[in-house]
């Protein structure tokens, strides 16, 4: 009894363009804007950072486990490598792992979800059972197996993370397709004699975009953590390639003498993840008319 009626809009007054409006709504919120700034910073670090910093593998035996200084603003590790350069190159690895695995999951999951949702009578039950099976499969066991087959590498990380994201992408796409295919405009297309493929591509898929964009902003930070985890466990990116996870592995041995070695990659993972999540929440609010105003 306490629900409030939505603020009225003059029904016959045409509303304004969607994208510009969504941006204005987005811009007014502090949290999503913080997220946007953090994500932008992360992208800048991952893309421009490796160019601006030196060789992450260059060893300086004169300064091993050195605290932050003028020459090494973030200090150095056990082999005298510059932590700043390693953090920047690690960002690149994280970005690659996050974006590539998400793209992989989307590339495979969207078509599957689209077709499954569209042919919900006969295809959907099959696909959804397969998704359930995938979900029941422990991610780490899968990653270990994959590392055993193709060797621990960034490729393996991307494959393992992409595969682990697949069920979520399929489910989200399918759920969206199930509701969109009930829209009258899809019926209208059927009544025009449009083919299934055409309806899926031009009527259904473009209208599923919003939740998938939101999903990507959730999946990328999860993949960043995933990459760090796998690399930390030695199943992912291999030394000497700098990865935040690899850096943490090294750092744990020197926690008492060189705590900054753990702080920098840890802080980076936390900030990047937080940034994407805040951005995702903001996008959800402005893109999804069902949540809030």
């Amino acid at each position, binding site marked *: *009894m306490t629900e*409030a009626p939505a*603020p*009225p*809009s*003059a*029904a*016959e*007054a045409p509303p304004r363009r969607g994208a510009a*409006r969504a941006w204005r709504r987005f811009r007014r919120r502090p949290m999503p804007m913080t997220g946007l700034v953090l994500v932008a910073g992360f992208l800048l670090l991952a893309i421009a950072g490796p160019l601006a910093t030196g060789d992450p593998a260059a060893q300086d035996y004169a300064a091993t486990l050195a605290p932050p200084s003028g020459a090494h603003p973030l200090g150095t590790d056990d082999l005298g490598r510059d932590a700043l350069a390693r953090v920047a190159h690690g960002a690149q690895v994280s970005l690659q792992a996050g974006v590539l695995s998400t793209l992989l999951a989307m590339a495979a999951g969207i078509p599957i979800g689209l077709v499954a949702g569209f042919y919900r009578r006969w295809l959907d039950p099959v696909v959804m059972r397969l998704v359930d099976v995938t979900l029941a499969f422990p991610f780490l066991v899968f990653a270990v197996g994959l590392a055993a087959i193709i060797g621990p590498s960034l490729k393996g990380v991307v494959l393992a993370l992409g595969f682990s994201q697949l069920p979520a992408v399929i489910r989200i796409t399918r759920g969206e397709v199930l509701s969109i295919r009930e829209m009258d405009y899809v019926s209208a297309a059927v009544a025009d004699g449009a083919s299934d493929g055409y309806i899926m591509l031009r009527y259904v898929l473009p209208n599923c975009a919003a939740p998938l964009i939101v999903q990507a902003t959730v999946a990328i930070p999860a993949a960043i953590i995933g990459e760090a985890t796998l690399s930390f466990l030695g199943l992912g990116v291999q030394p000497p390639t700098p990865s935040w996870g690899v850096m943490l592995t090294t750092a744990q041995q020197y926690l008492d003498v060189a705590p900054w070695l753990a702080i920098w990659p840890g802080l980076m993972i936390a900030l990047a993840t937080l940034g994407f999540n805040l951005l995702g929440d903001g996008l959800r609010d402005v893109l999804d008319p069902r949540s809030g105003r």
Partner: protein
Amino acid sequence: MSLLRITDLTVGFDTDDGLVQAVKGISLELAEGEILALCGESGCGKSVTAMSVPRLLPPETTRLSGSIELDGRELTELPESQLRRIRGKDVSVVFQEPMTSLNPSFTVGYQIAEVLRRHEGLSRRAARDRAVELLELVGIPLPARRVKEYPHQLSGGMRQRVMIAIAVACSPRVLIADEPTTALDVTIQAGVLDVFRDLRDRLGTAVILITHDLGVVADIADRAVVMYAGRAVEQAPVDELFARPRHPYTLGLMRALPSAAVNGRLAEIPGLVPSPLSDPDECAFHARCPRAQADCVLKRPELVRQADEHLAACFHPGGPS
């Protein structure tokens, strides 16, 4: 003395497009046992006006000014905690959508009893007995059995009756009904409207009925306020209103009804409702009005007395010409 007196009420909402003025200075009175219809088309501010009374509007974005007096008590200055005690007890609301207004996890009897226990402090037992009486009051057959049922076991018409039973459980002074029959079939609608009539006759409940349907207004209301673009443009007892509509908008609405077709054509109201973002000092209806003249854009017409109890905001009022 009138039971509810709204004076110069203005309600705006902060939106991303700026301040949207939904209600721009409306004054009205509601007498004990009266059924007052607030009518007009979507966006005219009829729901916002009524929901301002129990203040069921999003608090963060609502800008409200003016006065709302219930029994001489000013409501606009009451804090939320005190308003909560008024909602459901002195002023209660029936919403349009009977499907979503009930909690699917509890029996209808429990939901009615909950209100009684909260506001009246009745015991579990007494509340249950009263719930059965209330279901009977709103015309639900076999009430003793129905109290034990869940909302999904009831049809749309029955659910709306349950909503009304909840709303009148504490014998409110004012019942606000927001398009209560719009989601219902006509053969069900008649019965639900009878419930309101019956409540008024038996309990003396005053009703504010928000509706876009002039047929419903004619059927049940004593008096009607026609709203356009956030303002009252006409106000009169229904017999008078339908016999001699003064405002060209009211007349336009009546003539646009399919049943009012002349030679196979309906009278249209050309043009669009003005934007709620701006409010120039002119008649808001002038661009769509067949009687508009030069003076209509110079100044906004006030709601003035045209005849006994008949008010209209128009420089060129008249009967059907």
